[in-house]
């Protein structure tokens, strides 16, 4: 008897999200677990966005900071560099300067920066706040108005500020990231609350939180995996949004992406190790189900794109 590959059939499907107006990028839309193409159809590749900031990346480790030397003082130049020189398929602009502990930049200033960056790009733009719940509500409202109808993603809406931010995204016809803190039930609840406001469930992206390899990746991985299983095997419409892996900000904070080889010889050469750390972390989340990834180092992105080529 010949061997027959056992196949799962899934009752559910992940929503497909398309962003951008000039060059449109799509992600999600699959009816199978990641890369198990013998069981279903993957409509799209995972989309990788390059992370940039409205302020210079002074607190990024040298390995990744030096890549953007000369452009990172200006978010427009930085964005264009990623798009034109590094071939970015999407840009994620983090408005870190709006945080009260940073420059406490005003919502209007932030909105101006976001629309300047958007005007310079033809790839899609994701605009993120500084992860300060009150400030993000004000900043993202102003940003949403400035990029109205431009098919951007804004975020992140959290339990404490989702009403304001979701309303802004809805009024300005934008996609929205809903973020919860590493809890599958709260993630579902937040999606329910946002859609109960009338927000289109097909314009939502779920961020169940991320972590770096070696720093709790197993927890974040299994939350994502369980969300994807609920979407596919239980046909849970509140969990069928594409998942975001906001990877760079976690990876480039850990010791392994910063420690010099001279100090920790057993870890090997710093640059190779740091790039690998980001690539391996991103790979794990992609395998868990993330369809949208935000990353920092072009070499890590390149490695991931190559891996996707091989797996698709």
């Amino acid at each position, binding site marked *: 008897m010949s061997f027959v590959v056992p196949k799962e059939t899934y009752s559910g499907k992940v929503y497909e999200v398309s962003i951008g107006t000039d060059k449109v990028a799509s992600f999600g839309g699959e009816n199978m677990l990641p890369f198990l193409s013998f069981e279903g159809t993957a409509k799209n590749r995972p989309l990788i966005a390059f992370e940039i900031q409205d302020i210079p990346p002074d607190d990024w480790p040298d390995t990744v900071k030096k890549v953007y030397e000369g452009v990172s003082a200006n978010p427009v130049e930085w964005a264009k560099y990623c798009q034109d020189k590094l071939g970015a398929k999407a840009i994620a602009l983090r408005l870190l300067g709006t945080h009260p502990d940073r420059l406490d930049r005003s919502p209007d200033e932030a909105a101006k920066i976001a629309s300047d960056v958007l005007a310079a790009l033809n790839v899609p733009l994701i605009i993120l706040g500084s992860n300060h719940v009150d400030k993000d509500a004000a900043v993202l409202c102003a940003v949403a108005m400035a990029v109205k109808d431009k098919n951007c993603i804004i975020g992140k809406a959290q339990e404490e500020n989702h009403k304001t931010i979701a309303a802004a995204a809805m009024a300005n016809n934008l996609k929205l990231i809903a973020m919860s803190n590493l809890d*599958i*039930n*709260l993630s*579902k*609840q937040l999606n*329910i*609350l946002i859609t*109960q406001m009338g927000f289109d469930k097909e314009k939502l992206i779920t961020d169940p939180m991320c972590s770096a390899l070696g720093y709790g990746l197993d927890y974040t991985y299994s939350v994502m995996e*369980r969300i994807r299983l*609920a979407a596919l095997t*239980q046909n*849970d419409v*509140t*969990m069928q949004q594409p998942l975001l892996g906001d990877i760079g900000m976690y990876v480039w904070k850990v010791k392994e992406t910063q420690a010099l080889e001279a100090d920790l010889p057993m870890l090997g050469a710093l640059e190779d190790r740091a790039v690998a750390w980001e690539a391996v972390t991103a790979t794990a989340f992609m395998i868990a189900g993330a369809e949208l990834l935000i990353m920092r180092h072009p070499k890590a992105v390149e490695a991931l794109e190559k891996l996707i080529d091989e797996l698709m």
Partner: protein
Amino acid sequence: MLIIGEKLSIIAKRVREAMMKKDKGPIQEIALRQMKEGANMIDVNIGPAEDHGEELMEWMVTTIQEVVPLPLCLDTTNARAIEAGLKVHNNQWGRPLINSTSNDPERFPIMEIAVKYNAQLIGLTVGKGGLPADAEERSAIASEIMARAMEYGLPLEDLYLDPLVLQIATSQDHALKVIKTIRMFQELNDPPMKTVVGLSNISNGCPKHLRPILNCYYFALLAYEGLTAAIVDPHEITPVSKTIDVIMGNTLYAHSYLEM
């Protein structure tokens, strides 16, 4: 769990009057309400309907499906009325269910109709000789119905076995026997046989304030044993059904799970 709304029954005065006067209003209102309360299918009980049964069932099916995009459960002993209903049933909303056949030879022709119209069928595990005594007897009757279904060419996955819920007030010992039967029915085939109950019969004859309590707890016990479908008041049972799905891990918990 397949929730079949029981409220369109000739036993209810308002429904009976609407059926007699061919007044669409109350029928459509009750059907729509049951859907909103969580019904996945609507039971259409027109009684024995010996006179004008065909015309009545046809009118009921078209009247209900005019407003409710759900499949129907056609509930009468009149085989010609069933056939008339199946002819006009809109299968776009799902396959109809016939309520019911049993191990009584007089009820066998309905199997032919089920096959002809690609309908699903409820097999009530009673024979001509009266009520089954226990779970074992119910299973024996179920096996005979299954054998008969195969003879007629009805796929076993289209057959729902009904153990016949009896009144707790008069047949208390059968409450537990029926729970055991649900477990046994599933073992009669691989994949497991589907099962269905007319739930509210458990509390028939009980004081009004006790009925929802008896219905809900009994439903929970049956659901735990793997019941596939239930003919119920969806308003009463949907929250219980959703809660059991959460407890059994069939749906992911969120604070708003009852609203979904």
